[in-house]
């Protein structure tokens, strides 16, 4: 992964992290919340090659782990997202071209973000952190899935176009 690509990835996820912290977290959603950060990460991973996907997930995980309000150990989100980056990059071919299959793209994003939150909660519990009540977890995951599904037509094409512009321009001789 080139230095340019790495710096773009870091900048992108830092920017999304700031938007998530300062804007999205302020919105009172009816059910649960909405993790724009995870939704965009999974959108980003959908078009990445294996090695780039791992590094992107690692960068995104580290940024998320360094969130000061989190009580969970540093590295937990990184490990979780690395695991999912492996799964996504391994089975990405079976999903086909997500640009042409919007429903599949939406389902992929919903399942990806929801499962990553669930795995994170489970791993957090395994490492001795307190686990929220079951219904709270269910409500949060369901709410996040709902908003991820509803907003997919907005952010998914945007991320793809942005990536094409950023990296295609760079690769043009």
């Amino acid at each position, binding site marked *: 992964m080139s230095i340019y690509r790495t710096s773009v990835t870091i900048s992108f996820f830092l920017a999304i*992290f*700031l*938007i998530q*912290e*300062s*804007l999205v977290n*302020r*919105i*009172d*959603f*009816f059910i649960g919340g909405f993790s724009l950060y995870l939704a965009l990460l999974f959108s980003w991973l959908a078009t990445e090659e*294996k*090695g780039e996907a*791992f*590094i992107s*997930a*690692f960068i995104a*995980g580290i*940024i998320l*782990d*360094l*969130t*000061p309000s989190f009580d969970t*150990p*540093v*590295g*937990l989100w*990184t*490990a979780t997202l*690395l*695991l999912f980056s*492996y799964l996504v990059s391994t089975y990405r071919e079976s999903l086909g071209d997500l640009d042409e299959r919007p429903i599949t793209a939406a389902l992929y994003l919903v399942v990806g973000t929801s499962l990553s939150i669930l795995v994170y909660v489970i791993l957090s519990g395994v*490492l*001795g952190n307190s686990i929220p009540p079951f219904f709270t977890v269910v409500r949060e995951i369901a709410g996040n899935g709902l908003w991820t599904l509803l907003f997919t037509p907005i952010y998914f094409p945007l991320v793809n176009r942005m990536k094409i512009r950023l990296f295609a321009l760079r690769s043009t001789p």
Partner: protein
Amino acid sequence: MAQRGSGRTRLLLVSLLVTALFLITLDLRGVSLLASARSAMQTVAKPFQSAANFLFSPIGNFFGDIANIGQANERLDQLKEENKALQEKIATLKDMRGELRQLKSVLDLAGRARYEVVAARVIAFGPESSFERTVTLDVGSTSGIQRDMAVISGAGVVGVVKTVTARSAIVQLVSDPAFRMGVRIAGRQTMGILSGKGSSYFDLELLDARDTIKQDDVLLSRGSSGNRPFAPGIPVGTVVSVDDSIGALTKRAEVRPFAELSSLGVVAVILSEEAIDPRDSLIPKAPVAIPTPTVTVFVTPTPSPSAKTSTKKSTGE
């Protein structure tokens, strides 16, 4: 080549995973480096967060408001209902407090005069268009009320019962143009006839043209035959102006009543009274003026440096 590439990505994944696990282990072992990293992240992110917060907070608030619009409307309706109920309660309490004050004063007057009274609430005022000044009380013959009984408030005479039903009574007010009653000036035996004018002031006509009357004289009821309708000594009002026209056959004056006839709430109907004439003892006490304290400040001028110098010079220092 593909196998080699796949092996490199696997190695990359394993090394990244090991790094993540290493970070977890370090954090669980309490290495302060990671806490410092979080703190540094916060330091770096804070200006961006503040700026983003400044830019996006109106949008966030907008979405928050939209999300809460249903709850906010519900809460608003609830608060409006509560506010309405509280305002009604306050109005009722104010009304009750006013009635209580009136009841206390009327019972106080009746107690001092040793009258046997029935307290009553004014439930209606007669129409002014009929030129009669009447009020309706919520007590009637079942409470012992009879025609020609005097009605008083805490301040003095209000009127006379004219019509009685089982549970209500109509009172002719002192201000009624057809109302007449005998009065005397407090402290003297000067007598006169008080008549209503349909307004908030009454006319007084002295019986003897040689008698004198002056402003602020207090009028009391003279007492009727058999104390019906009026027992002697009930406060009526004060003289506000005297008509000193030369050649008039009688002295006339304008009187302001003690009782506030336009805002009657609770009154008392005198059922019976003791044979003792209270004389002037029922005259309402004039309100005592409370003096406003004045602050006197004494200022002693501080001698200026030049004055000090001149003093020194004059003393030869």
